[in-house]
C-alpha cells in the first residue's frame, strides 16, 4: 500500500506533549505556500504588479506628468533638448505616427494612437484588469460554490436542473455568449433590481465574465460535494441531528473552501485572459477606461510601427497570469492533502 493513502499513514507520535506539532490547516497551508520557491516568486511578482498598478496615478502625475486619459494629438514634448511632436506627421502627409519609446520619464514606452503615454496607461490598465479579474473571479467562485453545493447536496431534481444548466452554459460558445451579452448590455442598460449596469460601467465585463466560467468551477465543486455527502463525517453530522443548513455551513463548506481558494487565482488568470480577448473583439472595457486588453487592441493598428503599445500590456498579462497560475498550483499542493505525500503526520 502506498503511503499516500491516508488510512495507512500512522499518526504522529504522541509520546509526549512536546513532540506534538500543532496542526492548523490554514496556517500550515500558508507555510507550505511560502516554502515553495516558485510560489514565492509568483507572490512577489503579483505584489509588485498590484503595487505599481495601485501607484499608477503617482507615476502619471509625478513622473510622467501626463493624463493618460486625455488625447494629446497635437502636443509636443522636449526630448534630449529637441522639441518633438507626439504625433509625427510623415513627410508625405500620409499617415501620422505616435512617438516611440523615449526611455525617459515621459513617454517611456512611447505614445499610443491618441498621443497618450503608454507606460501610464499600462499601469492604469493594470488596475482595471486586476479589478475585473479579481472581482469576477470572486463572483464566479461565489456563485459557482453556492450552485455547486446546492446541486451536489440536494441531488435529485435540483441537481438535474442545475447540471443541465451548467451543460448549456458550457456548450454555448464562450465568445458568442460574451459578445452577445455585451452587445445587449452595451446597447441597453441592464437593470437588475436596484443595480443598473450602464455601458461604461466595469460591472458589464465583470458580469459577463463571471457568468461564463461558473460551470467550470461549479461542476468540480458539485462532484466534490456529492462525494462529501457520502463521507462518514457528514453522515455523522446527520446522525447527530444537525440540520442540512448547518451541515452545509459547518461540514461541507469548510471542506470545499480549499478547492475554491485554489480555483480563485486560476479563475482570476482565466478571467484576465478572457477579458483581454473580449477587448480584442471590441466588447469589454469601454474607453476612457483602459484595461490591458483594450490597450493591446488600441495598439493593433500600430502593431508594425509601434509594436510596444501592444507588446507591453501583453507581457503584463502573461506575467500576471503566470504568477496567478503558479500560485494556484502551489495552493493546490498545500491545501489538497490528497495530492501530496505526507509522511509522519
Amino acid at each position: 500500500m502506498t503511503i499516500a493513502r491516508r488510512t495507512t499513514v500512522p499518526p504522529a507520535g504522541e509520546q509526549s506533549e512536546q513532540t506534538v506539532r500543532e496542526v492548523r490547516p490554514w496556517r500550515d497551508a500558508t507555510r507550505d505556500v511560502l516554502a515553495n520557491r516558485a510560489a514565492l516568486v509568483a507572490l512577489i511578482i503579483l505584489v509588485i504588479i498590484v503595487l505599481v498598478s495601485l501607484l499608477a496615478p503617482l507615476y502619471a502625475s509625478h513622473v510622467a506628468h501626463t493624463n493618460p486619459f486625455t488625447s494629446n494629438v497635437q502636443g509636443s514634448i522636449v526630448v534630449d533638448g529637441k522639441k518633438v511632436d507626439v504625433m509625427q506627421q510623415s513627410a508625405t502627409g500620409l499617415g501620422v505616427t505616435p512617438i516611440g519609446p523615449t526611455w525617459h520619464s515621459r513617454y517611456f514606452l512611447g505614445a499610443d494612437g491618441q498621443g497618450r503615454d503608454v507606460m501610464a496607461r499600462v499601469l492604469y490598465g493594470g488596475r482595471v484588469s486586476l479589478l475585473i479579474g479579481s472581482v469576477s473571479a470572486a463572483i464566479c467562485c461565489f456563485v459557482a460554490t453556492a450552485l455547486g453545493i446546492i446541486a451536489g447536496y440536494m441531488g435529485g431534481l435540483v441537481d438535474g436542473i442545475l447540471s443541465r444548466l451548467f451543460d448549456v452554459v458550457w456548450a454555448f460558445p464562450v465568445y458568442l455568449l460574451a459578445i452577445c451579452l455585451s452587445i445587449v448590455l452595451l446597447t441597453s442598460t441592464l437593470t437588475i433590481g436596484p443595480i443598473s449596469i450602464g455601458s461604461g460601467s466595469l460591472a458589464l465585463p465583470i458580469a459577463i465574465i463571471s457568468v461564463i466560467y461558473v460551470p467550470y468551477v461549479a461542476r468540480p465543486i458539485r462532484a466534490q460535494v456529492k462525494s462529501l455527502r457520502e463521507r462518514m463525517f457528514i453522515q455523522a453530522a446527520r446522525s447527530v441531528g444537525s440540520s442540512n443548513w448547518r451541515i452545509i455551513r459547518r461540514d461541507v463548506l469548510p471542506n470545499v473552501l480549499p478547492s475554491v481558494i485554489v480555483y480563485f487565482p486560476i479563475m482570476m488568470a482565466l478571467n484576465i485572459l478572457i477579458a483581454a480577448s473580449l477587448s480584442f473583439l471590441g466588447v469589454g472595457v469601454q474607453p476612457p477606461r483602459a484595461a490591458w486588453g483594450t490597450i493591446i487592441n488600441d495598439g493593433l493598428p500600430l502593431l508594425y510601427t509601434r509594436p510596444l503599445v501592444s507588446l507591453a500590456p501583453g507581457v503584463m498579462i502573461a506575467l500576471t497570469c503566470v504568477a496567478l497560475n503558479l500560485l494556484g498550483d502551489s495552493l493546490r499542493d498545500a491545501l489538497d492533502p490528497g495530492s501530496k505525500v505526507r509522511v509522519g503526520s
Partner: protein
Amino acid sequence: ACSSTGSTAGSSGSTSSGANVSGSAFQAQHKGGTLTMLANGGGGTLDPQINYTNTFWQLYQNTYDGLLKFRRGVSGAASEEVVPDLATAMPKVTNSRKTYTFTLRKGIKFSNGSPVTVDDVLATFQRLFKVSSPTAGSWYAQIVGADACLKTPATCTLKGGVVVNPKTNEVQFNLTSPNPEFKYQLAVPFTVILPKSAPAKDAGDTPIPTTGPYKFVSYDPSSELVMVRNPYFHEWSHAAQPQGYPDKMIYKFTLDAEAEVSAVENGSADWMFDPPPADRLNEIGTKYPKQVHINPQLAFWYVPMNVNIPPFNNVKARQAVNWAIDRAAVVSLYGGTKVGSPVCTILPPNFPGHADSCQYTKGGGTTWKAPDVAKAKKLVEESGTKGQQVTIVSQSDSVNKSIGEYLQSVLTEIGYKASLKTLSENIEFTYIQNTKHKVQISLTQWYEDYPAASDFLNVLLGCSDFHPGSDSSVNIAGFCDKSIDAKMQTAEALMGTNPDAGNKMWGQIDQDIMKLAPVAPLFTPNLVDFVSSRVGNYVYSNVFFMNQDQLWVK
C-alpha cells in the same frame, strides 16, 4: 494616359484641371490579364436593386447599365455628369417636369444573349418595388402607381407610371410631382435594367445577367467574386459604358486591411477596396508613392448632437462643441493631412452648393484654422450644462473609435463628464438614429448618393427625415427648424428651374444651419487608392470612385 490624374488631383481637391472629358481612346495593347482586387468582406447580395454598398455599386458600373449613367472613363467633375446609357439620349421632360420620355437603344443584349427590350425596363421598375429596394419608398415614390406598389409589392404594375411602347422603343415615366433629382436616381444601380426573367426576389449570390462589358461568374460572399467579359457586349457609348481592359476580374474577400496592404505591396493583388490602415499610410506613402492615388470624396464626417435632449438642446452647448474640436487633430487621427481636410460646412468642398465659410474657428475666416477651447469652455459655462453626463456613441473600428476617444477627451476638457460607447458599425448607424436610445452625441459620416445638395442638407437635417422612435431616422440630430425647412423646400424647387440659384440658396441654408450647430462637421475624407506596381490607367470618378475595368494590368 490618365494614370497620373488622380495622384496629382489629391492635394487641393480640384480635380477637373487635367481631366480628359471625352475619355481616352481604347488602347488595345493593354487589353487582357486578370485584375485581382481585395476587400475585407463581401458586399452582400449581388442583386443590384437591393445592394446598397459602395463595394458593389462600384462594380455595377462595369456590369450593369441603366437608362442613364454617370459618365465613365473620366476623372474629376466631369464624372459627375449624367449621360444617356441604354437610352439613346437624355430624356425629354414634359408635363411641367413630371413626364420623362426615353428611347431605348436597339441591339443591346444581356450576357445571356437575350436582347434588351422596353419590357425589360418596365419589369425592372416593377421589380424595384417587388424586391423592396431600400429607397423604393423614398426616391421612387413619386412615380405614378408607386403607392400601390409599396402597399402590395407582389402585384406591382406601375400602371400609368412607367409606360412602354415596344413599337417606338420608348419608355415614359410619369411622376406625381416634379423631382429635380430624378435623373440622378435613374443613374444609380437601383434602376439598372435587368432581364424581365430576373426573379422577383432577392437574387442573393446568383448573378443576374448583365449588359455591361463584364458579367459575374461566381460569387461566394466569404471568399471571392469572379467576373469575366460579357461575350455579348459591344461598346455603344464610350462615355457611358466604355470597353474594359482586363479579361478577368477577381475580387477576394478574406484578408483584413493590414494583409491587403501587404498583398498589394508584393504584387499578389492589384488593388484594395478598403482604405489602407492608418499605420501603413506612412509606409506606402514613402515606399510606393507612385502606386498611391488620393482623391477627395463627396462626404463628410460629422458629430450630430441631439437637439432635443440635454445638454445639446442648448444651442450654446452645441456651439461650444463646434468651437472646441480640433479638426486638425481629428484629421491626424484619420490618417494625416493628405487623407482628409478640416471642414466647417455640411456640404463638402466641390459639392454643388458648397460655399466656403467657417463660423467656428479661432481668429475667424472662411476656412478652419484652430479650435478655441477657451471660448468653448465659456459657452459651456454660460449654457449651464457644465458637469453633465455625456455619452458619445461611435463605431468600434479603430479609426472611428480613436476619433471617438478624442471627442471624449475634448468634451471632458470643456467641462462634461464624458464617456464613450463604441458599437459595431452595423448597429451604430441605426442605433444613433433611434430616439429611443437617447443618444446625446455621436460620430458618423455621410457619403453622397448623387451630387445634389439636398442629399446632404435635406436628408440629414430636414424635418421629413426625423422619425422619432424609428431605426430609420437619418436626421440623427433630430433637428427640425420650420423656417429652415421651408427654405429647403424652396431651394429644392429652384433646382428644377435654376440650378445655380438653387445651389446658392443651399449654400446659405448650410450656413444658417451651422449657426444653430446641430452638427459639428469634422472633415472631408480623401480616398486613398493603393494599386500594385503593374497597374496603369487609373481613372477616378467622383461618384463611384476608381473605374476598375479601366485599369491596365498588362
